[in-house]
């Protein structure tokens, strides 16, 4: 399967791989902005918002996620990097340990999520195989932003 498969709905120009808590998110380049360093973030008021990033003249919150893709508290360091993820005029920052880009759409081979792994609704729309042996979780900007809003709503309730 390639990047033009029905799993994504359209063809992507490349991929961004961002790592945190020993998971890798694979995001189509169309859904990501240019990486931001931690010291470029504007301080935020909320506990789980680690800072605000500027994207298209607006400020948007940045979060650190755990391996269940839930926002968590996190101590920023000078090496922290933030990936803006965007969709439908909105953005969120994902605080990562490492960000890499792959400029070829076929850099990631897509596989459907097997039935036994679909326990709960998830923003992960597919699994991606890259660099021969590495596995990442394929998300779109829209599904990840929707998931973050739902997860933060659950925390408030």
């Amino acid at each position, binding site marked *: 399967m390639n990047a033009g498969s029905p799993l994504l709905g359209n063809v992507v120009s490349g991929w961004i791989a961002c790592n945190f808590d020993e998971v890798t998110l694979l995001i189509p380049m169309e859904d990501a902005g240019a990486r931001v360093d931690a010291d470029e973030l504007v301080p935020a008021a909320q506990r789980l918002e680690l800072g605000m990033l500027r994207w298209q003249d607006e400020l948007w919150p940045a979060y650190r996620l755990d391996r269940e893709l839930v926002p968590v508290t996190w101590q920023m360091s000078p090496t922290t990097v933030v990936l803006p993820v965007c969709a439908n005029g909105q953005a969120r920052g994902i605080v990562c340990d490492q960000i890499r880009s792959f400029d070829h759409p076929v850099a990631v081979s897509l596989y459907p999520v097997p039935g*036994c*792994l679909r326990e709960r609704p998830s923003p*992960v729309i597919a*699994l991606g195989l890259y660099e021969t042996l590495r*596995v990442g979780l394929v998300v779109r900007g829209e599904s990840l932003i929707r998931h973050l809003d739902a997860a933060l709503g659950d925390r408030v309730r």
Partner: protein
Amino acid sequence: MSEVSAQAWLLEFSRNQVAAVGLHELLEVLSRPKLYHVPMASARCHQVLVWRDEILPVVDFGADPASEPDDAAPGGAVTAIAVYQTVPGEPLRHGALQLNVMPKAITVADNMACALPESHPSLSELAISCFFYENLAIPVIDLTRVFEE
């Protein structure tokens, strides 16, 4: 008339969770392969591995289904690669099973058939038949149900 028998693999998921599959349904055994976490999944199936350019789900019936997924848990001693087919004529699919010990090849005869055990409902729900072996009722599990549902 002579007794009909078949070869099967005996799979020990934990000390008290044992099941069987047909001899043709196991392809290979791996020792501690690299596992990748998948979020929002169950305690028994929250990891995948890479095998021959495929991403396979890893099912661990030895994990407590009521617990949170735990990648630090010891898991199985060996990982067996299984093959199944959802519909005749469709391409073969693969999945991985965490086992406590190496799978054991046994011979199962028709006269060993028995009722499904009630002690381990999670395995019984996946069973297509059952046989009695060394004082244990051993469910024969349907791999399509294991990996697809």
